[in-house]
């Protein structure tokens, strides 16, 4: 019977921990969970907080995670850590912001077009002026 299991803690930006451990404690949504080898497969959300890890012949280690998911497979445990504190409301606010920015950009499209048009007209007027200038010089 194995007394250790493999633990991976990964976030979208990097791999935080990978190695065999004896025991781990994580702040699950419904309260802290302690996991020993041969734990039943489980999937749960975790809150932001400390994950305590005990590896063989080593001191206990503390790793901070800002929320994420905890997955327990028969011999492998994975913590998918979020890179930032996430909440439904916060995500919603960001979605609205992204939408608003797009709408604004769409509105500005016309003004940009106007700008391009004005620029073209200005260029034409300038070339006309230059031509008139040349003609005048030739006369004198």
């Amino acid at each position, binding site marked *: 019977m194995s007394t250790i299991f493999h633990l*991976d803690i*990964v*976030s*979208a*930006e*990097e*791999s935080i921990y990978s190695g065999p451990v004896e025991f781990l404690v994580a702040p*699950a*949504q*419904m309260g802290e969970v302690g996991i020993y080898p041969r734990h*039943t*497969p*489980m*999937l*749960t*959300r975790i809150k932001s907080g400390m994950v305590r890890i005990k590896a063989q012949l080593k001191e206990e280690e503390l790793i901070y995670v800002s929320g994420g*998911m905890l*997955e*327990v*497979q*028969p011999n492998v445990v*994975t913590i*998918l850590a*979020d*890179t*930032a504190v*996430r909440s439904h409301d916060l*995500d*919603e*606010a*960001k*979605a*609205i*912001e*992204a*939408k608003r*920015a*797009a709408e604004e*950009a*769409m509105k500005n*499209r016309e003004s*940009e077009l106007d700008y391009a048009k004005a620029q073209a007209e200005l260029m034409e007027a300038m070339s006309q002026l230059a031509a008139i200038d040349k003609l005048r010089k030739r006369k004198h």
Partner: protein
Amino acid sequence: MAGSREIRNKIKSVKNTQKITRAMEMVAASKMRKAQDRMKKARPYGEKIRNVAAHMSRANTEYRHPFLIARDTVKRIGIIVVTSDKGLCGGLNTNVLRKTLNQMKRWQAEGEQIEACCIGNKGLGFMSRIGANVTSQVVGLGDTPDIVRLVGAVKVVLDGYTQDQFDRVYIFYNRFINTMKQEPVMEQLLPLTDERMQSDEQSNSKPKTTWDYIYEPEAKPVIDDIMIRYVEALIYQAVAENMASEQSARMVAMKAASDNAGNVIDELTLIYNKSRQAAITKELSEIVGGAAAV
């Protein structure tokens, strides 16, 4: 010698340009290394979450997440276009936007509506120029594909999918192959295809055992969370690859520009020397001719 001063000025200005392109090349080279590192670091997360999602899609039969259910009729399509914020990176953005445009034309010919989500300034500018319907955007990401910044725009698209505004979601970006080669690709993001799950699974070569999890607090919100994070991880990966591609494309483009500037300087120097020698010869022969006349 009216020409010689002009040529000298020209050489000077080309030299200045070369200095700038060379500096940009070096900046891009150092950024490229970081961007590639970031892209590699993002991989384990993508793999892990993919495994979880694949297990889950097989294990839990009571609740199937909408991301996994393919729809029969496709009327509206959401696209995510990943480009860089800045230019001067060769044909990188042009290639991916050309691919996007061709695909959009094909869809429009089939009578499908398209809504776009733009990540990166260049794509946004292009989409608004061609009059596409842009529903969300993220610009000014800088050098790090910050997932916090991406969340909002991505959520608009994912919500659109779950609320039946889109029937399919595709993503366009530059896949990083190596420093010299980047390839514009189109991938179907939603619904998540079975083959995507399977091909990922096989690469891990694990025995196909299935088990059901204990879900805490219950299955639905946990599965929802995993699925959203999975799709976000895919998009994050795409953005990270695009950024690595951007820096390498810029480095290559700037190297080519520096080399070209070098060639121009050589040519101009040759012309300058020729005209200088011609002038000297002319002056000499005038003096000699003058002396002979006296």
